């Protein structure tokens, strides 16, 4: 996990979670605290590697402070003194179910969504699928990971409201995509399609095709040339990358370990 958002040491504050009195560092994200306590909270747009976004609305909880009670997402809620959080009130359950039903109706065939929906007690959505959007649920994880962690900003949201989608600039082949595959790894629904063909990585969903480099040892294409270049660029003189695929590297490592073992 990348510790980008670790804050400086904060004083402890008193809060209540589902009736339990606890002391937590001020400003911590409520969702992290809930998960640490073992409270189950469904999420779809959250990933610990990027800052909270608050888009899917599944992580809602009921917050109370003084005389105010309100429904709020917990992923982007910071803990403050006197905050009272409830995670299983009727309105929380109702809200989560409706959010889930609406998300599922965008992409009803996605198994990961069906499972999450079943956990929340949501059956077949009452709304029909109505526009052709693939499996994307607009959680924005790919966009944020590509921008904040990889620094490529190859994809972004375009369009407002119901026309919102994720794509490369003008839907054309991306110039800044390095083919790192972080978006594919982080997507909760498997919307982003890619395949290797004739020594090229095709990220179909982003209309992008990248030349690959062959492994020095086994000769199979193993990574996009641009990715190697960009990582090498970041390493600078600090190190050089070998053009060996992970499989062969593992084999080499085993061999070396074996030899070392015999020498002892």
């Amino acid at each position, binding site marked *: 996990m990348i510790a980008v958002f670790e804050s400086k040491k904060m004083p402890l504050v008193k809060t209540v979670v589902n009736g339990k009195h606890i002391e937590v560092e001020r400003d911590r994200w409520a969702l992290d605290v809930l998960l640490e306590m073992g409270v189950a909270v469904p999420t779809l747009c959250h990933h610990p590697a990027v800052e909270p976004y608050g888009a*899917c609305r599944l992580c809602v909880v009921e917050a109370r402070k003084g005389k105010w009670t309100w429904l709020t997402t917990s992923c982007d809620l910071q803990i403050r003194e006197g905050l009272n959080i409830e995670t299983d009130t009727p309105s929380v359950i109702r809200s989560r179910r409706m959010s889930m039903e609406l998300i599922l109706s965008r992409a009803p065939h996605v198994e990961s969504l069906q499972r999450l929906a079943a956990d929340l007690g949501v059956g077949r959505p009452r709304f029909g699928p109505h526009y052709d959007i693939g499996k994307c649920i607009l959680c924005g994880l790919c966009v944020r990971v590509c921008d904040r962690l990889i620094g490529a900003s190859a994809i972004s949201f375009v369009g407002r409201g119901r026309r*919102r989608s994720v794509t490369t600039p003008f839907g054309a082949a991306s110039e800044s995509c390095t083919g790192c595959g972080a978006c594919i790894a982080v997507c909760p629904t498997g919307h982003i399609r890619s395949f290797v063909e004739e020594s090229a990585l095709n990220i179909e969903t982003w209309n992008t095709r990248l030349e690959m480099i062959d492994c020095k040892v086994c000769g199979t294409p193993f990574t996009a040339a641009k990715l190697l270049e960009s990582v090498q660029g970041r390493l600078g003189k600090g190190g050089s990358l070998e053009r060996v695929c992970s499989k062969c590297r593992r084999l080499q490592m085993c061999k070396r370990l074996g030899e070392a073992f015999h020498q002892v």
Partner: protein
Amino acid sequence: MISTAGKKDTERIKSVQEFQGKQAYSRSKFYSDKVRVSVGAGTCGLANGAADVLAGLRDEVGTSGLDFLVRQTGCIGYCQVEPVVDVLAPGLPRVFYHYMSAGKARQLVRAIAEGDFHPDWALGRLSRDQLLVRSERDFSSKPNGLSTVPKLEELPFYKAQLKIALRNCGFIDPHDIEEYIATGGYSALAQVLASIDPEDIIDLVEKSGLRGRGGGGFLTARKWRACRQAHGYPKYVLCNGDEGDPGAFMDRSIMEGNPHAILEGMTIGAYAIGSDSGYVYVRLEYPLAVENLQIAIEQARAYGLLGPNILGTDFSFDVEISRGAGAFVCGESTALMASIEGYSGEPRAKHIHTSEKGLFGQPTNLNNVETWANVPVIVNEGAQWFARIGGEHSKGTKVFSVVGKVKNTGLVEVPMGVTLRDIIYDICGGVPDGRAFKGVQTGGPSGGCLPESLLDLPVDFERLVEAGSMMGSGGMIVMDDHSCVVELARYFTEFLTRESCGKCTACREGIVRMLEILEQITCGKAVREDMDLLDELCCYVKDNSICGLGKSAANPTLSTVKYYRDEYLAHIEQRRCPAGVCRELTKFVVIPDRCKACGRCVKTCPVKAVRGREKVAHTIDQDKCVRCGACREVCPFDSIAVA
């Protein structure tokens, strides 16, 4: 466009004393011995032909060799009677003329040159030079030959109005800072810089009770104080001129007609908060507002009223214009800030207030155009004066743009607490063509539709929310009995499916599903259970959206379901649209007893569906009829009905 202010005048004003000199000079110039003729050339005036009128005036004054000043002003609010020309002549009350054309304007100047002020063309005369601000001249008791012209301030349209935010709109040339100074402009700023501490200004604004005019009605002083107390430098002061609400144009009118009032307000606010830079965020579709603001900013800088060391003090503040992205959601505070930063206008959760971390992560204070325009008047007239106007918790006035089915459309500024009936009937003349009032949508797409039984509701922040609507920015759309409330809800909901930023599930998906149900109802395919699902969705969207757009998106639907439930049920159970709007559910018929066989409907029907002979009641061929309702609109005997 070129500024009409003389270049030689554009020296810096180096001190508060010097400002007073400038004020006296500007006054003597404004009320000079020359005749000043001006044309209301705001966007609304221009749309009604003000540019031609102005060209005609300029040409006539030039060719006749008259020593008249020809100026353009903003809008006096009475959009219905445009183009408007006004004449300010020495020794006479200021006269406003309505329904002008280039030809009439030429005739008018020729006549004035001969001492004839054409009272027959006048809309009204002003006893004093403005509707609010104290003025030098008072003609209340001496109309000087213009006694046949009614007093402007006594016309039904103006009688109940009190112009604070709109004080100069239509009265001064927005391209000339000296006309603003002549009518009291920048005197509040001069007074503040000379003798008031920042904290005391916040106290003053607090005592006045001023609340934000951008919709939510937040206490302005509380926001300023939070920003003043927040740690961090720089701090930003912003003005929200996004005005994305369809049918609303009050902020446009102020930006076009009185831009210096906004700049003066912002400068006072910046001084109170401790900020030295600001932005005015203007909607993309408002080119004239941008132009007039830009000219105003440049003139204010040249006069030393913006920029470094304002009026020779050590206070500095400057403003830039940021042009909006043309989206309704960009009016939301966090989306607006993202947009100024160059990102797409997407709101974020406001667990951390923008007064702590706003624009570029710095303490930021955002107020609406109208809010800023109120500030100088509060300083000049005092907090108590302001607090005496309006209702218990809503002080001062509010500008409404009243459109739709009223006789007089336009901009209306009234003390808060007056009733909807006062605005719709007394000021705007009620529903035209003898039709019945059906409802009024206040607050645009975020507001609700209020029925006749609520006409006596006092208009203030709390009462509107209690009734299921909101003040919003002040748009009012009046509907008569030929409007369908389900269609109204569908219209605004459709608007919101396009204008939602699409970030959060609740708003993006929820509103689309609400729209689907509303569409089913308007085309007669809904069942009773759909009403329950619609209600469930409304409550969900309201509770689960990130920003105000989603949180208020259900208001049009919830309010119409609440006040016009029978009409929804008629669509669902009887497959009938009582208002005759939803085409699939409408059948127009002729009531034979009323039909006088005049033949108008026969001529009007675009598809020749009305059959009729002389002296025989007409009939409508239902197979041909496209349910446009044109026959119903033209029938003088009210003999076309919805079956």
